């Protein structure tokens, strides 16, 4: 992250922007310190979503050892 921050700072300087600062510890350190951010936050999957993945989802019917597996790709609409 820190390398990315330094790289982004260099890029910004090359583009003629100022003032520019590299974040020590990167973006993660900024957020961990509780500083404000703008825009949509990007969060890790919650426990519920993670549980879905861990269980292979609940959209499954039948024996996991069945000889035939059908995957239906659908969009409800």
């Amino acid at each position: 992250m820190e390398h990315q921050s330094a790289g982004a700072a260099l890029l910004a300087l090359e583009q003629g922007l100022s003032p520019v600062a590299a974040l020590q510890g990167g973006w993660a350190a900024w957020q961990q310190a509780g500083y404000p951010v703008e825009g949509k936050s990007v969060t890790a999957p919650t426990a519920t979503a993670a549980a879905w993945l861990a269980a292979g989802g609940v959209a499954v019917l039948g024996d996991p050892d069945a000889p035939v597996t059908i995957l239906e790709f659908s969009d409800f609409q």
Partner: protein
Amino acid sequence: MLQTLPKIDETYIQTGLVRYVVKDFPLPSHANAQVAAEAARCAGAQGGYWAMHGRLLENQKEWAPQAQADVIRTFVGYAQDLGLDGDALRQCVESGQFGESIRQDQWQGQQAGVQGTPSFLINGQLFAGAYPYESFEEIIEAALAGEP
């Protein structure tokens, strides 16, 4: 699949011959497909995935043209009708917490060559489009017989 799946269920799923998995593949051209997929998963988080799955398919004409704020309200109503916690469903849908797992399904589909819905991968073989039960029967029987 509203008419076909119950027949496949009775003949092949309940008898242990077929495992059936729904993967979400919301198309960008369908404005409410993503939020519907999220609503189904959020219902699933309360143990009501298949009930909501059926309700969404049965009432597609009602919710498909709605604006997003309205469609969430509609899905909350479906959840309540099904005995689920409507407020929890709303919070779940609005959080977008299942977005990543839905994107994973889309990625899997794209890797398999899926371009539209519905599409089916039956023992790894891709079939695009909706088929009557008889076609599924034929394909499943061929797969059970070990035919490619």
